């Protein structure tokens, strides 16, 4: 499963890289596949409302043909509905691929993954019913394939397939049932989406406006210039030579039709089983970079910042069991995804996953200052890079003369680390993050900027010269941008002079006074 994940990650990076070159990272649709799916669903509901008014269960194909014959509204409305439903499958597939590739489907994210699988299932059923409702050659083929599968189950004594055999009219109730499901399932999907995002704080449900309008207008243009054709009405007495198959919803049809029914069911069951088992198959032991965050109650001052910042609502404030008058933070390991954002949010560095707390970061940067910065001939730029952003850029950044320090997420970074790097001899600190919409910690770049420049806890101290600190985005496929950002930053430092190292013990004392207190307490 790990090698499959790695393969998927390579594919995701290759696709990202192409999108970054074309669109830039801000509008990379692959970063916002989930929110694009929600936007497309909204578009489907809006266009569907119009189609619903025109559709007749007593004359399904004829009513769609009437729509199709109306060049002013009907044809393009149907086209947009059809193409948006196809694009929805693409968006969902991209979302699933990204979550799988980035190992974001297990642990606290299991509910999101499982509800996502069910949402996908609802989407497919809703799509199938939409095609059947039209009752053209493709809709009929889909219905017959479904009937073949159902009739193999010992549920109904009368084969469903007899409905389409031609010895009687297909009852309106059949089309009504399809219509009902087609309308009810997307509405039910609303509940599914709520469940899907229920474990996360501040979910982003819509993509940036330019992207949203771009996709909407693109689909409209497609519907206007290449209208969705209406295949001939289904005829129970005639199998036409070719059927216009919709690959997005019926990719399985040619295979399922050529397999024995039991094999088709087994294939469907196995696919669903594997999809539902992904959280189990991809889970990691909760150690190392997957270890959950822990609170050191001796350091926690009860400031309530970490519950505000945690993107997974894994932290709550509780009463203390000692005599201090404040509350104490508590991490629920079952909800924690080890993103480490809380490590950057805690002024006294009292919370974070093992080996990634602010205090651990201070140890690392102190070593860097001692071993690298202090022995360098001239003050260096320290580039603190998110290890997920663009690993292949790190060597180039080093060759460009920066000292590279990696973090699991830029949102992990404690502001004291930046201060310590500057005091340790760095001429400036440039923090590279993933694109905000592609952050595995969800809100890393956002909180980083807030902490560095807008006074959010744990904020960068006022004494730090902000001109020597910058944040930027590093994306695969755009090394030129990474290097240009670095050069620009370095150029901006030139007029400021060397800065200069100071005795780090002073800062250590400031940063670690809480810890010293604890140690004294322990003694």
């Amino acid at each position, binding site marked *: 499963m790990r090698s499959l994940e790695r393969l998927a990650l390579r594919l995701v990076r290759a696709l990202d890289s192409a999108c970054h070159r074309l669109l830039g990272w801000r509008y990379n649709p692959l970063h916002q596949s989930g929110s694009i799916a929600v936007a497309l669903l909204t578009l489907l509901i809006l266009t569907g409302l119009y189609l619903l008014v025109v559709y007749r269960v007593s004359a399904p194909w004829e009513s769609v043909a009437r729509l199709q014959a109306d060049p002013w509204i009907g044809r393009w409305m149907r086209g947009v509905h059809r*193409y948006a439903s196809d694009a929805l499958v693409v968006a969902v597939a991209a979302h699933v691929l990204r979550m799988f590739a980035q190992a974001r489907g297990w642990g606290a994210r299991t509910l999101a993954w499982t509800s996502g699988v069910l949402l996908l299932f609802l989407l497919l059923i809703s799509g199938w019913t939409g095609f059947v409702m039209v009752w053209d050659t493709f809709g009929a083929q889909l219905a017959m394939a479904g009937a073949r599968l159902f009739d193999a189950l010992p549920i109904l004594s*009368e084969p469903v397939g007899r409905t389409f055999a031609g010895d009687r009219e297909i009852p309106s109730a059949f089309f009504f049932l399809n219509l009902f499901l087609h309308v009810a399932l997307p509405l039910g999907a609303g509940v599914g989406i709520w469940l899907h995002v229920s474990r996360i704080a501040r979910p982003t449900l819509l993509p940036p406006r330019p992207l949203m309008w771009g996709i909407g207008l693109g689909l409209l243009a497609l519907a206007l210039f290449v209208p969705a054709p209406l295949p001939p009405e289904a005829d129970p007495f005639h199998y036409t*030579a070719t059927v216009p198959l919709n690959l997005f919803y019926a990719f399985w049809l040619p295979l399922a039709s050529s397999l024995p029914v039991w094999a088709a069911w087994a294939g469907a069951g196995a696919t669903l089983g594997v999809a539902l088992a992904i959280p189990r198959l991809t889970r990691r032991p909760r150690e190392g970079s997957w270890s959950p965050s822990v609170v050191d109650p001796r350091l926690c001052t009860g400031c309530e910042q970490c519950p505000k910042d945690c993107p997974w609502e894994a932290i709550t404030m509780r009463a203390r069991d000692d005599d201090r008058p404040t509350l104490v933070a508590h991490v629920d390991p079952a909800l924690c995804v080890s993103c480490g954002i809380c490590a950057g949010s805690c002024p006294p560095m009292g919370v974070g996953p093992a080996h990634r707390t602010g205090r651990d970061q201070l140890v690392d940067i102190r070593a860097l200052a001692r071993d690298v910065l202090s022995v360098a001939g001239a003050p260096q730029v320290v580039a603190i890079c998110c290890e997920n952003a663009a690993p292949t850029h790190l060597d180039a950044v080093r060759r460009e003369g920066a000292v590279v320090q990696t973090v699991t997420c830029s949102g992990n970074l404690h502001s004291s680390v930046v201060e310590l790097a500057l005091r340790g001899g760095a001429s400036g600190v440039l923090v590279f993050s993933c694109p905000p919409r592609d952050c595995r910690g969800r809100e890393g770049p956002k909180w980083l900027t807030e902490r560095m420049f807008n006074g959010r806890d744990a904020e960068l101290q006022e004494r730090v010269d902000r001109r020597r600190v910058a944040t930027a985005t590093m994306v695969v496929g755009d090394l030129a941008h990474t290097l240009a950002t670095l050069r620009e930053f370095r150029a901006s430092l030139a007029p400021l002079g060397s800065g200069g190292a100071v005795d780090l013990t002073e800062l250590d004392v400031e940063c670690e006074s809480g810890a010293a207190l604890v140690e004294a307490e322990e003694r």
Partner: protein
Amino acid sequence: MSLPISRLAALSAASVAALVLLRAASFVPVHDVRSDSAWVRLSWSARPERIEHCRRLSDAELAERPAHMRLRLECEGRFARYGLQLMVDGAVVLVDTVQGGGLRNDRPMHVLRETPLTPGTRAVRVVLVRLDTLSTPDAESEGVATPESDAVLGDRGAREREERQRRSEEGIPPQLSLDTTVTLGAGRVLLVTYDGEKRALATRTGGS
């Protein structure tokens, strides 16, 4: 966002390509292998006949029963099975046994079979024959009234006879057959169905 011309051109080309791909994958012409053959489709629902062993109750036995349970004939049995055969140009292409649906086979018998043929003019013969034999019918099971039954059961006797008559008429005849010669092109379907009113097999091809 201001884009250089070259990037704008690349972006436009990529968007058009994505939309064209979307459109292409939305309507992929796939050959339906069923259109290579002509087809005979057998499709109907009908009630199978009931195979019963009946005992005629005496007046004394009837009198012992609660009024609402008085039936002159007390029957036990099951529903008949039928042999289905399809022949094309004299060759048997389908042999099957069909029976009523449900766990006790007491539901209508649903038939849905499709058999491919070589397109052209074909002599098609369909035969449906009851495989189980009925018990020897007595006067009452044939719906004939006797003075004895009417004396004890009154109206209920008549209703019982009517009910039995109706059930036997609802059942499919013990033997059905259909012979027809049709010309079917590739992808065309000859439907053979059961006409409940005429109590006979009937054919349909599209548009007729």
